């Protein structure tokens, strides 16, 4: 019996069990049951499954459900009434008057349409300019949404949060030195932090109920801040709030400050047992006040300054991001998880492809923000004295237990090639990783208008740095020019591929000469 007919038989048995077959179909099934023991066994299992499901106990009745519902309904009504600047009974009259006014306004606008068109075109120019100034183009999505409190605790302890289901890509905060903290987006997920839950914390540290409530609020604030700290845009740009670089430490300080000395000892052991890279340094110091900790965990303001990394450049820009509306947009986007993952992967890949060009284009005499690129990771390093921090004083309550060796993994640099492509009277210069495609292209280069030459060794360190004072935004024209160059390269690649296929076909034909006779 084929898989398809098995599925059809199962579907029919399922409908038979539900009494949803017509008479003739039911008779057919009964005949099948009388002669086929497998069908009888399947039906028996279906009956057993159905009885398992229907025997389930429901949820206990809710006491006071109506009281809570009617309170919510009253509140809803009051809110609606408060929205109207006049008593509700006048609503029909006001609606009629409004409709008349709209029609009248329409007539006036129609008569004055030339002036209106002028005004709109002036305004749209301003809007256009504002859009051009905006470095994050297209739809903006938060990279993290619906972070749960267990993930927030794990982030506080280890500074890591996964970007995909299998934790192959993660965002990680590393304290490289006293001067630099780096935010790494790593595609290979080098060292995975162990899973930690709030229940583990409660079991081992044994906080009181009040302490747990405060810690719960801290984690709640922390996760909301985390959600509002990293955004990706359709053009593969990523905006990161610099305060993300110490968010986990602030959360950890807050938890530590909530605990009594004995509990802090247990908490320290809890951190050490799980190899968290932090240790508590409470000792004789006075814990930081809860107000100070909470003020650090407040959400980014709408106009906070973000580090924006795009395939083309790095800028620090004051972005106006309405987190709530972005989050609503996020829920509307289908397959958003996949889309965000693709954006991040694309960003990593394209940074690796283009970072040399960016380094070439800029000079950065006094950096406060640095970005390192690699084909599997990129790292944003934030200087401790960066002006974007609201509270620059160092927090001593928690300190790194083990110095973190490096922001991103050390790996052999991928060799790169520069090449020039001549077409008619124009020439294009590219610098690309020498991966398998390029090796193949190099082999086949003769006669294709390509000239390869070695990359400048000074550009191989793949480091570029930003001086906030000398940054400029990416302009549309620059993006357009890049796109043109890359589309040329794409068509070239396609041409090479076609030719290779043709050659392959010819080779195959030569090997089987008999095939030519037909």
């Amino acid at each position, binding site marked *: 019996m084929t898989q398809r007919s098995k*599925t059809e038989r*199962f*579907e029919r048995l*399922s*409908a038979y069990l*539900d009494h*949803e077959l017509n008479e003739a179909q039911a008779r057919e099934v009964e005949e099948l049951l009388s002669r086929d023991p497998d069908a009888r*066994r399947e039906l*028996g*299992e*279906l*009956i*057993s*499954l*159905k*009885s*398992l*499901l*229907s025997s*389930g*106990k*429901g*949820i206990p*009745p*809710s006491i006071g*459900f*109506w009281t*809570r*519902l*009617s309170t*919510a*309904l009253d509140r*809803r009504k009051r809110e609606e009434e408060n929205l109207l600047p006049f008593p509700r009974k006048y609503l029909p009259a006001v609606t009629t008057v409004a409709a008349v006014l709209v029609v009248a306004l329409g007539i006036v606008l129609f008569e004055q349409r030339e002036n209106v068109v002028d005004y709109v075109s002036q305004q749209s120019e301003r809007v256009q300019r504002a859009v051009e100034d905006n470095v994050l183009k297209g739809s903006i999505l938060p990279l*993290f*949404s*619906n*972070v*749960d409190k267990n*993930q927030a605790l794990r982030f506080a302890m280890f500074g890591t949060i*996964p*970007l*995909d*289901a*299998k*934790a192959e890509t993660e965002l990680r905060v590393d304290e490289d030195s006293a001067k630099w903290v780096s935010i790494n987006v790593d595609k290979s997920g080098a060292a995975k932090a162990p899973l930690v839950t709030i229940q583990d914390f409660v079991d081992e540290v044994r906080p009181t109920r009040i302490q747990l409530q405060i810690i719960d609020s801290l984690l709640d604030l922390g996760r909301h801040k985390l959600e509002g700290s990293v955004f990706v845009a359709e053009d593969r740009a990523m905006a990161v709030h610099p305060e993300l670089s110490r968010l986990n430490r602030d959360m950890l300080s807050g938890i530590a400050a909530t605990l009594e000395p004995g509990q802090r000892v247990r908490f320290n052991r809890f951190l050490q047992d799980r190899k968290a890279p932090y240790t508590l340094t409470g000792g004789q110091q006075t814990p930081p006040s809860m107000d100070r900790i909470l003020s650090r965990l407040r959400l980014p303001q709408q106009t906070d300054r973000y580090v924006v990394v795009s395939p083309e450049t790095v800028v620090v820009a004051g972005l106006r991001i309405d987190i709530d509306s972005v989050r609503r947009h*996020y*829920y509307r986007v289908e397959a*958003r*998880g996949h889309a965000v993952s693709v954006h991040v992967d694309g960003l990593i890949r394209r940074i690796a492809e283009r970072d040399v060009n960016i380094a070439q284009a800029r000079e950065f005499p006094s950096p406060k923000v640095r970005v390192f690129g690699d084909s599997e990771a990129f790292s944003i390093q934030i200087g401790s004295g960066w002006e974007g921090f609201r509270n620059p004083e160092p927090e001593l309550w928690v300190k790194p237990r083990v110095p973190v060796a490096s922001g991103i993994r050390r790996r052999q640099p991928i060799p790169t090639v520069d090449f020039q492509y001549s077409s008619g009277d124009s020439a294009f210069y590219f610098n690309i990783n020498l991966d398998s495609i390029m090796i193949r292209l190099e082999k086949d280069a003769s006669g294709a208008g390509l000239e390869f030459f070695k990359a400048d060794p000074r550009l191989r360190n793949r480091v570029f740095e930003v001086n906030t004072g000398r940054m400029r935004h990416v302009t549309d024209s620059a993006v357009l020019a890049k796109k043109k160059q890359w589309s040329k390269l794409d068509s070239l690649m396609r041409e090479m591929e076609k030719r290779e296929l043709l050659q392959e076909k010819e080779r195959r034909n030569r090997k089987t000469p008999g095939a030519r006779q037909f």
Partner: protein
Amino acid sequence: MAYQTVAQPVEVPLQAKSDEVLITLVQQGEPGAFRVLVERHQERIRNLIYSIFHEPEIVDDLSQEVFIKAYEALPNFRFQSSFYTWLYRIAVNKSRDELRKRKVRRWFSLQTLLDSSDKDLSSKIAVEPRDNELQELVAAGLQSLPDKYRIAITLKDIDGLSYEEIAEIMECEIGTVKSRLSRARAMLRRVLEPLVKERA
């Protein structure tokens, strides 16, 4: 002496009135009618939501949202379907919204758990479960199904609705309900195999 008998109108309590009468009363502004509708259907809606999520803490909040939505939409109710089917549709849509909101979290973390859920569940079932564990295992099996299959099998096997009613609630064809149910059962049979075989 002749007595004149006058027919007294009998006051039927709201609780004894049908859904349709109560809806008409709500539409006419009768304050107590909606309360009776809520009290009549609240447990079914709460149980439906519980079956879909298996999280007692969100049941009351979501059920409340369902009834608020129903209250706001009742003035436009046109009696084209039964009240409970209509209410179920609101509940299913609300649940879908909630599930959609959670998808990202599932993408981040739950997927890895789900990858191993079949194995974990099978190892638990391999040991004879106690009565209270049985419900947990069945619920865990249900939770491992994709949303559209879970909702379909819940409406059929837990709430006992017909294919036609399920199609109306889930806004799809009857054929789709049939195949979703069949797939849901096939998946669940695989997950709960030892339990099902033992009881067959």
